[in-house]
């Protein structure tokens, strides 16, 4: 396969040799930006940046004297961005005729002041975190995985298949392990297919993963509407319920299932893999400059494929924990856009595997708040997508210093 990919990569690299070189240095700075040493790395660039026209456009690019003021400024940008998002959401609520003060008060009370809701945040954060890691790992190699939704669905389908066929025949622990393996394999295969399409026939992975989301969803619907339909079920078609022994156990006396722990473990593993292993280093090299990576003799095709597959496996696991930890049945709308929200969580965290935990919890909280919104204020639950969108718009547009003056034309 690597033979087949070389022309493609050469073709891409040969087109724009000059920007690539500039891009490499930018990316090195950017990659460092994920860690705490960001300002130290960026300092030498500052005189250059100040002299370019772009710097005058953005008043927020002063010379950085110390890490502390840099951090303070970053924090101020975040606070301002979030405040702006909430302000616009408030205006929209007013336009809708709702009383923002009472909406916020109700949502706050029913989301953050009672234990079941707080537990719900952790329950929802588990698949979100895993789905976000599925974006983080390929992003390290410069790939855009928009297919978290489909990979989560495939993971849930694989786990469901095991659960339905073997759930009450084997021991609970064994079924759980089989479900984990099957879901990760299914997610990896689904994402890997997108990587193969990119490497062999040159379909951009952002487009193929997006399309494959819908195929996965149709597969799920197909299964629950006919072959896997619970014959004893009433109303909306679902699969039969997972055997009790195969359900993921709860943490202590809470309603939070062990899937959240899986997600945290996965985060730690991803962090170590990306930071301390050769594999992680090589992915970063490819993400920075694929041409240089290939000339250095790295197996680019294999690395890209593995990055996507690992990401897909994590998303697949996300589907499994949601199925075996919460839903117990495959049903329509089992994922409720988890994959897309996870994609945004990864961008919110700038693809940093540690910040992603915070981002996933924050977006999970917004999702739970959406349910409160529906119950307390009678507004559609999907309305919180406005808030999510506004937060992301603010974060994407207004929380980074614009360092890409070289590219800005």
């Amino acid at each position, binding site marked *: 396969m690597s033979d087949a990919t070389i022309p493609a990569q050469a073709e891409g690299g040969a087109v724009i040799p000059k920007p690539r070189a500039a891009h490499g240095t930018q990316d090195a700075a950017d990659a460092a930006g994920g860690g705490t040493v960001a300002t130290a790395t960026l300092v030498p660039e500052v005189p250059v940046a100040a002299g370019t026209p772009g710097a005058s456009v953005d008043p927020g690019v002063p010379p950085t004297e110390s890490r502390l003021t840099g951090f303070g400024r970053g924090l101020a940008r975040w606070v301002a961005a979030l405040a702006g998002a909430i302000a616009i959401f408030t205006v929209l609520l007013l336009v809708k005729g709702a009383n923002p003060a009472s909406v916020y008060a109700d949502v706050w009370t029913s989301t953050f002041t009672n234990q079941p809701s707080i537990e719900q945040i952790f329950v929802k954060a588990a698949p979100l975190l895993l789905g976000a890691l599925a974006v983080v790992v390929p992003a390290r190699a410069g790939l855009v995985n928009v297919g978290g939704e489909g990979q989560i669905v495939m993971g849930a389908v694989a786990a469901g298949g095991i659960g339905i066929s073997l759930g009450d025949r084997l021991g609970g622990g064994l079924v759980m392990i089989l479900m984990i393996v099957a879901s990760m394999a299914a997610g990896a295969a689904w994402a890997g297919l997108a990587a193969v399409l990119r490497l062999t026939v040159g379909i951009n992975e*952002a487009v193929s993963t997006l399309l494959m989301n819908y195929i996965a969803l149709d597969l799920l619907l197909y299964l629950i509407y006919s072959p896997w339909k619970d014959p004893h079920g009433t109303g909306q078609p679902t699969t039969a319920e997972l055997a009790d022994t195969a359900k993921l156990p709860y943490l202590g006396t809470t309603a939070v299932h062990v899937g959240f722990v899986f997600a945290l473990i996965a985060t730690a593993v991803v962090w170590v893999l990306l930071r301390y292993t050769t594999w992680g280093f090589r992915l970063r090299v490819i993400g920075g400059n694929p041409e240089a990576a290939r000339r250095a003799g790295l197996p680019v095709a294999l690395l890209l494929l593995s990055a996507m597959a690992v990401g897909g496996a994590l998303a697949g696991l996300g589907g499994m924990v949601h199925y075996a930890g919460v839903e117990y049945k495959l049903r329509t709308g089992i994922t409720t856009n988890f994959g897309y*929200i996870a994609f945004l969580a990864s961008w919110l965290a700038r693809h940093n595997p540690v910040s992603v935990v915070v981002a996933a919890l924050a977006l999970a909280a917004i999702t739970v708040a959406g349910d409160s919104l529906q119950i307390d204020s009678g507004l559609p639950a999907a309305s919180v997508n406005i808030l999510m969108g506004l937060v992301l718009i603010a974060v994407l*547009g207004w929380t980074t210093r614009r360092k890409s003056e070289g590219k800005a034309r």
Partner: protein
Amino acid sequence: MSSLAVDVLAGAVGGGTAIMYAGLGETISERAGVINLGTEGSMLGGALAAYAATATSGSPWVGVLAGMGAGAALAAVHAVLVVARKANQFASGLTVMFFALGLTSLFGAAYVGRQIHALDPWKVPGLGSIPWVGPILFDHDPLTYLSFAVGPLVWWLLYKSRVGLLIRTAGEHSEVLLVHGYSTNLVRYVSVIAGGGLCGLGGAQLSIAYSNAWFENMTVGRGFIAVALVIFATWNPLRVMAGSYLFGAALALSPALQARGYGINQFALDAIPFVVTILVLAVLGRRTLLAAPDELRRVFETRAA
């Protein structure tokens, strides 16, 4: 059997129109070097705005304008993020999609199930009575007829007009614009926003002409299909027209078969448009990528931080 073919093809034209408008809009945007995954959002916004404006004003043509305006406004958010703030184009587009999904859920709840005075199909006298051709091409809503003209118009705009030259230059070699004293950013703003307007028109066709209804997330992926369609049409508006009918046919197949009592699982058929897109992209392979505007290819191939 022949009536099945006519049904599917007529459905292809009527149902493909929304995708065509969105695809044409996306073509303009991508020709200027900006990929917009927010097409889905612009379509949703356009669909609701058109429906609400029609319900309020009583005139579907006011609705059409409102739909275009809403689509353009949502695309403007993407344009600001991508052009002025240099945000990642994929992330920004999806963000706009979510924003639009939320907005239309919040403001659309009041319009679910509401009756409107919609754009009814109008059979062209004479032409509409031709066997086969009549029902397929000449028994549709006005926005479908309009699309017959808009496709070639976009082609003319891009390839034969001065504005089109500027748009394509922004997508191929933006530094040339700079040398000649034009603002690349301005060209991209205009292209993305105009493209969003066409997406909104597509949404309007969907809600006030094709299905005569509004419900949450009613576009179900048509905007994303449009994005893929533009790629496999190699950024050519006329091929976008042809491709959108292909998708329309795939979407029309399942209801047409079910209406005839074939016991086919609907969801297997629903997957067809997406499978077909991937297959076509795979068959066309690298040729599509070579046809891409240069600056767009950069978006695809390098990591935009």
